[in-house]
C-alpha cells in the first residue's frame, strides 16, 4: 500500500514536471526581464554627476549630486549647502532642488565643448526652526504673505566642459560654470523700485561639475 502510494506520488511528480518545465522556463524569462527592469529602474537613480557650487544665495558652499536626461539637455541637482555664522547667529544648513536646461552645445575641439546658455530654477529651503513656510499660529491669519524658509530662484549662466578620456570613459568630464541668479523676494523688491540696479539684486555664483556616468 505504502509503495503504491509512493509510486503514485512519484508518477504525479513526473507528470507535473513534464507540464511545468516548459512553463517554468517561460516563467524564468519573465522573472529575468522583471529583474532587469527592476535593476535598470534603480540604476537610473544612481547619480550621474556631482556638483559643487560657490554662493548663489543658497549657501556659501553647496554640494550634491544630479542626473542628466533628455539627450543631456536637462539636469536635475540635489544640493546641500552651508550658510556660515554671521551677525551673532548660528550657521545654517540648506537644501536646494535645482532644474537646469542647457539648449546648445558647441564643440570647440576634441577635448572641450562650450555651452553658451544654461538656465533654470531652483528652490532652496533652510533647516532652521526660526524660519517658517506658513505663518506660525501666533500671528493673525495671513499676517505675512511670504515664507522665510523657502526661496525660489531663477538663473542664467554659461559653462565649459573638458572631456577627460573620450575613448575609455566617454562620459567622464569636468565642467566649469558661472551663473547669475535672483530670488523671488529680490525680484519683488526690484520690480517696484527703479532705485535698485541689477548689481543690487543679482547674485553671482561659480561651480564645478564632475560627470561620472
Amino acid at each position: 500500500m505504502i509503495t503504491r502510494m509512493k509510486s503514485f506520488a512519484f508518477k504525479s511528480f513526473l507528470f507535473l514536471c513534464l507540464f511545468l518545465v516548459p512553463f517554468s522556463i517561460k516563467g524564468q524569462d519573465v522573472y529575468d526581464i522583471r529583474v532587469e527592469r527592476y535593476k535598470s529602474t534603480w540604476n537610473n537613480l544612481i547619480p550621474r554627476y556631482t556638483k559643487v557650487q560657490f554662493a548663489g544665495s543658497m549657501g556659501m558652499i553647496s554640494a550634491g549630486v544630479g542626473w542628466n536626461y533628455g539627450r543631456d539637455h536637462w539636469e536635475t541637482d540635489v544640493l546641500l549647502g552651508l550658510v556660515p555664522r554671521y551677525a551673532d547667529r548660528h550657521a545654517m544648513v540648506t537644501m536646494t532642488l535645482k532644474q537646469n536646461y542647457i539648449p546648445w552645445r558647441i564643440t570647440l575641439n576634441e577635448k572641450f565643448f562650450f555651452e553658451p546658455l544654461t538656465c533654470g530654477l531652483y528652490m532652496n529651503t533652510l533647516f532652521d526652526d526660526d524660519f517658517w513656510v506658513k505663518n506660525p499660529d501666533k500671528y493673525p491669519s495671513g499676517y505675512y504673505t511670504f515664507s522665510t524658509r523657502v526661496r525660489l530662484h531663477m538663473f542664467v549662466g554659461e559653462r565649459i566642459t573638458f572631456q577627460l578620456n573620450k575613448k575609455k570613459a566617454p562620459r567622464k568630464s569636468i565642467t566649469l560654470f558661472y551663473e547669475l541668479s535672483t530670488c523671488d523676494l529680490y525680484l519683488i523688491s526690484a520690480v517696484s523700485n527703479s532705485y535698485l540696479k541689477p548689481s543690487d539684486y543679482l547674485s553671482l555664483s561659480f561651480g564645478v561639475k564632475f560627470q561620472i556616468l
Partner: protein
Amino acid sequence: MGFSRYWFIFFLLFTACDLIDYHPYDGRLDSDIETNLNEKAIVRIESACKTKDTIRFVMTGDTQRSYDETERFVKHINQKTGIDFIIHGGDIADFGMKKEYEWTYDILSKLNYPYVAVIGNHDIIGNGDHVYKKIYGKENFSFIAGNTKFVCLNTNAIEYDYSNPVPDFSFIREEIYDDKEYDRTIVVMHAPPGNEQFNNNVKDVFQAYIKQLPELLFCLHAHNHQLSVSDLFNDGILYYGCENMSKRSYLLFTLTPDDYTYEVVRF
C-alpha cells in the same frame, strides 16, 4: 573663444565681489557698512542740541520696500534747513533680509542730518533682528536733545516668545530713575499699545509705567501706515502715528521750551 571666455570668468570673479551672496538671511554685511549707527547719531544729536531751546525733528517710518520714495525723502529733507534730527519709526526692511537693510542704509546714509531708527516687526523676521543689532545697535535706547529725553522702545512683542521682554520694563525703569538732566520725555515705538503686535496683556501697565517718566509729553509710533493722533488711554497722553514712506509724508515736530507744535509735510 574658450580662452577669452576664461578671462571673462576671471574678470567676473575679481571685479564682481558685491554680487557674491551666500543667502538672503546670512547676516553677512558688506564691509563698507558702518555699525552702531544709533549710538553714533546720538553723539551728534546730543552735542548739536545741547544749548538749543527749540528742537525740530522729523518722524517717519515704514520705509520697507519703498526705496524710490525713501530716496525722494532724503533729497527733500536735505534741501530743508533747521532740522536737528530724524527718527525712523521702524520697518527698515520688508522681509527681514540683509540686503534690504543694506539698500535702506545706502539711501539713508546720504541724509545731511543724523537719524536714529527703532526696530519694527518686519525688521525682526528671519534673522533680521540680528542684522538690526549689528547695524543700529540696541533695540531699546534713549537720548537727550536739548531739554527733552527720547525713550525708544521695541514693542513688537508678537515676534518674540516670553524669553524676550518686549516691552522691556526693566529698561523703562532704568530710564525713569537715571540721573541725567532733562525736563520732559517723549516715548518712541514702532507698534502702539492695542495693536496686534503689542503685548496687550500689559498695555495698561505699560502706560502706567511710561507715565512715570519725567513729564511725559507724548508718544510717537509708526506701523499703522496712516496718520493718527489719538488719546489711546483717555488720560491726556497723545499717540502720534505717521504714514508709511510710500505715501510720501512725514511729521515735523517743533519743541519749544514749554510747548510743542507739529505739522504733516507731504513731499
